[in-house]
């Protein structure tokens, strides 16, 4: 599903990713763990195609296609989804209108028929219930006045609505209490499927108690320095990044 080869990325002229390799087959959930400044967010923004994240060499193949040439919206239409660490507040755009606009923009780009407002509403309500997202939240301006947990749940709702082939969750656990964490994890686990790949990016092992990954990779100074099974996450938690990667974190 995702094949990253020798990826070098610079931000503001500074190289952050320095030859990153990562391969995620369909049906698997991988975790990338790393200390602050290791390049976790750069990886997620680069995958989503954010401006200012310049690929200087290497490649990102998604379903065999090079991602670098695609705009962020084209990537979304092709089934790529990034749950942001800090979902953006947009006053003046109601959450429901945003969801409908985004869903239909993706469908239009794929040459599919648009879904009418009533059907979108039904679809959203059905997914929202499981995530404990209220009607009131859906009416409010996008993410405005939402708590940290509400914002993250709304990200998961979007993932459920768009049904991506590849989902990247960037520090989705940050700022969540244990109940919210469980709710979010359940939402993610419900999306696991043989046709879908997921990448969970996190600083802490905690989230991985709930979303058990197929593989765990450790990111340090812009490279994957070691990989292993789910037990690697527990080991990291116990011993710290320093011991595992053989350098100060």
């Amino acid at each position, binding site marked *: 599903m995702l094949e990253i080869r020798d990826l070098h990325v610079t931000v503001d002229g500074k190289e952050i990713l320095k030859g990153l390799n990562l391969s995620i087959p369909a049906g698997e959930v991988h975790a990338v763990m790393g200390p602050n400044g290791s390049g976790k967010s750069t990886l997620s923004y680069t995958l*989503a*195609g*954010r*401006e200012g994240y310049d690929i200087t060499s290497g490649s990102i193949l998604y379903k065999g296609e090079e991602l670098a040439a695609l*705009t*962020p*919206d084209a*990537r*979304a*239409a092709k089934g790529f989804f*990034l749950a*942001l660490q800090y*979902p*953006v507040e*947009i*006053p*003046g*755009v109601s959450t429901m209108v*945003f969801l409908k*606009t*985004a*869903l239909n*923009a*993706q469908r239009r*780009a794929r040459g599919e028929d648009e879904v009418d407002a009533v059907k979108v509403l039904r679809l959203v309500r059905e997914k929202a219930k499981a995530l404990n997202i209220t009607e009131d939240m859906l009416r409010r*301006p996008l993410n405005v006045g939402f708590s940290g947990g509400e914002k993250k749940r709304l990200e998961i709702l*979007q993932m459920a609505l*768009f049904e991506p082939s590849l989902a990247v969750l960037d520090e989705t656990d940050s700022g969540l209490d244990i109940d919210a964490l469980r709710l979010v994890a359940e939402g993610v686990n419900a999306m696991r499927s043989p046709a879908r790949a997921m990448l969970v990016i996190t600083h802490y092992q905690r989230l991985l108690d709930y979303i058990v990954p197929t593989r765990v990779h450790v990111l340090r100074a812009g490279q994957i320095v070691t990989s292993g099974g789910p037990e690697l996450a527990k080991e990291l938690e116990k011993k710290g990044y320093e011991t595992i990667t053989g350098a100060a974190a």
Partner: protein
Amino acid sequence: MTVEALPRVDPKTALFRKDFAANAADLPGAGLGWLDARRGAALEAFALSGMPTRRIEAWKYTDLAVALENDLEPATPFRAEDAAAIADSAVFAGAMQIVLVNGYLHSIGGAGLTDAIDVVDLAQLSVRTPDWVEKHLGARAAGSDQILGAASLALMRGGIAVRVRAGSVDLPPLQISVVNPARGHGVMSHTRVLLVIEDGASLDLIETHAGEGEAKGLANLGMEIVLGENAVLNHTRLQDEAGGTLHVASIGAFLSRDSRYHVLLGNFGGRLSRVDMNVRLAEIGAEAHIRSIAVLDGERHADVTTVMDHASPHTVSRQLFKSVVGGRSRSVSQGRVTVHKGAVRSDSHQMYKALLLGPRAEADAKPELEIYADDVVCGHGTAIGALDDTALFYLRARGIPMEEARAMLVRAFLEEVIDGFAEGDLRDALWRRIDTALASAQGGAA
């Protein structure tokens, strides 16, 4: 007074003075003592400062003297070929419509006028002109604080005085359509509108300005608004002049006890526009809300300058300005709030925001506050910037293409101004006009 005795003047100032010197005897109402006196005082106020340049503090960002052509001729009234331009001026559903052509009263149409409304044609002033016109006409928007307003009174060719009788409520909206048809060369119109809403009366007013042709003319309007006790005026103003026009409007509003004035100033057209608005919260409990939207494409200049006087206790003012500036356009927002001595418990807030769509767009915002009373709540803020990259990325990451995402964010930016003000047809018309201007402004900025 004698114009000739004043010192040498620049050609732009001379343009107005020559017009007056040549035509004073033929101006409507000439010979009426009360009007001659007010006109004379107005011309003197204008002549003392001359055509505004940046040297005048209130015109710091807008040099009218430079923008004005010096060979303009007085505009002429309706001609048969103007019919198309008038037909283009849409009537809002159910509205009573008054059409002015080049500043002259042309027709009364739409739903017609109810008995609650009196209209006087200012081109036909005479000794039989009603007292309420004589009492108010030229009392506001005609002094040294609104220089072009003063010129509009001195050189007035026509216009209307409208009165809504005491206690009249639930009237259909009144639409005043000001149409400036092409004359093949640059013309100047000097128009006055007097609007008196008597005690306890309420009116929704839609004021539209449209024109045709690319000639570099001047449409100069002086507007006086008098609100009686408990009167309510909801005023929407859509300035959509032709591309060459200089649009100058001087609005002076007087608010009596517990009256409410809500206005939305929409500026979209014209080469240069200046809305000069003075609101006097004269009596206890008066309340004024000014909202302003400018969406500027190409190379336009739109200046909204307000003076808000809290002259009595328990008065409230709110000002919310939002400009979207594309191309090489420039938006100017200035507002001075003065809380006068004794106006305790005054409550005032000003917010000016501008969104710049490209590197050549410019916005200036200058709020000012002068407080001479105790126990008041006053605040102001400004924010000028480009579209938020993070928000743009977020929408695009969800599959929304660049142009659609930009439009969504710009509309969201403006929504706050329209929300809670306009509903139904008016709201739809506003958004249609905004969307057209945005499409053009976004295209120009890309």
